[in-house]
């Protein structure tokens, strides 16, 4: 018996996506695996690339607004707001206060709706199916509010350059207050049903921990960055719109793991409720839109604005050459930068954890690929 026993394992390649229940869209992850352990994860993008930055060069400023809805399609209001602010900065236009307040109310409602779209599927990644339905039940109420305001449920185009398109419909304020009351109870339910579950805690605690330095190096923003302990939020740091008139906290985590990202987002939802309630109290009367010409032709120049969307910082950089169409537009999307930490976080994790880490980063492929 001089036969040597070769006891080795073979690495293999696992293709996760673009059609996979947990890649939340058309993301493809290329995984180099050793058994269940992921040695290397490389995201492959571009399956939803629609070339919006190039399209912008052949559209007038108002025509491009509906395209922004399709960037981060679960938080269209925030996209509208960022784009409108950039064009307004080019035009040096003043937005009336009532419009600013309505924008804030809508953006914060949309933040809650967006976090709910994250919360449900994230629980589903963990195998719990029921929270999904609970989250979408609450989201449905927000969508009903949006529908009453602008007739749309997903791609709103509610904000326009210089203000908002329509005033708030009758009964909107009361319904929103009612929603705020209802949703506070719901948040407690989520915390006890999901956040208090020991399996949930075991699965998320310490998984995919991101250090503050790495998060900053990779350009992460939003809840992913705040979960690491960095108190960075555009709404507080460089208050845009009328955010400096409200009292709210910036929830931050400690370790930057999946559990912290979960907790930061849940806390953000209750902070958003605070902002909405204050904005409803202070909502001034007056115009809802600045007086602007039909065809918008900014002076030659450039402008960059950046706002805090539910996923992080969304920036629009627009170069104008004085014509009715932008000369160049660059969109800085938070999902794209946040996604870049996936190879770092997934190294050495099990395939089950890759799924939840990816879920906790909360990417929207429309925002990643543009």
């Amino acid at each position: 018996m001089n036969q040597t026993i070769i006891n080795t394992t073979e690495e293999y390649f696992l293709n996760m996506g673009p059609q996979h229940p947990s890649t939340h869209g058309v993301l493809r992850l290329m995984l180099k695996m050793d058994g269940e352990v992921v040695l290397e994860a490389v995201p492959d993008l571009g399956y939803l690339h629609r070339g919006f930055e190039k399209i912008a060069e052949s559209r007038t400023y108002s025509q491009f607004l509906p395209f922004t809805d399709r960037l981060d399609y679960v938080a269209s209001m925030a996209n509208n707001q960022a784009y409108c602010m950039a064009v307004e900065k080019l035009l040096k236009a003043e937005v009336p206060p009532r419009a600013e307040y309505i924008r804030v109310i809508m953006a914060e409602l949309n933040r809650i709706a967006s976090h709910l779209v994250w919360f449900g599927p994230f629980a589903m990644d963990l195998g719990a199916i029921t929270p999904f339905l609970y989250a979408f039940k609450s989201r449905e109420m927000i969508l009903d509010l949006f529908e009453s305001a602008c007739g749309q449920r997903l791609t709103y185009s509610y904000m326009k350059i210089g203000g908002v398109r329509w005033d708030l419909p009758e009964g909107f304020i009361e319904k929103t207050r009612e929603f705020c009351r209802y949703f506070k109870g719901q948040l407690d339910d989520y915390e006890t049903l999901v956040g208090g579950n020991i399996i949930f805690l075991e699965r998320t605690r310490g998984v995919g921990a991101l250090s503050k330095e790495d998060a900053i190096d990779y350009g992460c923003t939003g809840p992913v960055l705040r979960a690491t302990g960095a108190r960075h939020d555009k709404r507080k740091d460089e208050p845009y719109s009328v955010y400096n008139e409200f009292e709210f906290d910036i929830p931050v985590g400690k370790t930057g793991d999946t559990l912290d990202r979960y907790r930061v987002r849940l806390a953000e939802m209750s902070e958003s409720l605070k902002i909405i309630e204050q904005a409803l109290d202070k909502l001034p009367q007056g115009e809802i839109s600045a007086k602007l010409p039909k065809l918008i032709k900014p002076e030659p120049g450039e402008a960059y604005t950046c706002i805090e969307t539910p996923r992080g910082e969304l920036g629009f950089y627009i170069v104008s050459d004085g014509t009715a169409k932008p000369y160049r537009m660059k969109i800085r999307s938070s999902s794209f930068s946040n996604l870049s930490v996936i190879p770092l976080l997934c190294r050495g994790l099990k395939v089950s954890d890759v799924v939840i880490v990816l879920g906790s980063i909360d990417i929207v492929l429309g925002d990643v690929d543009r």
Partner: protein
Amino acid sequence: MKYIYDIRLIFDFVFSLGARLWELTGLPLWLYSQIKIVVIGSILLGVISLAVMFLIWLERRLSAHFQSRIGPNRVGWQGSLQAVADIVKLLAKENITPANADVVVYLLAPMVVFAAAFMAYIALPVAPRLVVNNFSLGILYILSISSLGVIGILMAGWSSNNKYSLIGGMRSAAQMISYEIPLVLAVLSVIMMAGSLNLSEIVASQKNFFDWHIFRQPLAFLIYFVAATAEINRLPFDIPEAESELTAGFHTEYSGIRFGIFFLAEFANMMIVASIVTSLFLGGWHGFGFLPPIAWFLIKDAFTIFTLIWFRWTFPRFRMDQLMNLGWKILTPLALLNIFVTGIRMFIK
């Protein structure tokens, strides 16, 4: 009235009548006993299929209520025929065999899984004397046969020529070695109390309400229930399927009725587990009078299944290594301790 209380009498009557008629034809008697086996098998299969269809409906309606939905309510009364419609649909669908699959193993796998689940019913008494074959080693037989199903899952995962299926199959094998040991050890302490491996005798030993093993062996009950949930691949232990990770795990590539057979086997396994829980811990068919024994058995069975369904729609999933930790580091020592304590108690008595 006595026929309602002892259904076995009906079968005895029918089969003895059949034997008389058979003698009149003059055909050999061994042929009659073969036919009898086929008939009993068909009855069992029919009952299991009907029960599974009911369970599918029950699970869908219950999960809908847990999730503030309505659930299927169109086909038949309150959607009760939805499962029939689904099975007809599955029968009509194409059976796809993936390219480069190991065809023989691929086709056999669902049969192995289902046969393992089906064969366990043979030794399962649901009422006094109402059992196909009253093995003296009944519980041992059921435990060993139902763990054969894992081989089918492994076959399905291996032969599908799909990496997700392969991971699912491997996970299933790894899962089995972690839950099977505490499961058997938990059952062992009950066997020590009852002094028999025969399920009918184990049930007979729990005649009084406070003799039910759930009161005398609460730890064994918990260990068995957790391990059994892992055995039937249901949440929080549906690791081999893990929809969000492995698309559908070992049965990703199966379509049509072959997928349906996996589905059928899953629910059949669930009923086996619920029946064992009922027989070992909940006093089997012993009730509080006013209903026939089989009704008490079914009520307890249904309650256990309800709990399993409840688990599934409430909990998130464990990770593979966490399940193994649970099995090896928590459940197995606890089960051993339980046996030790039970032994000492019996020794002192």
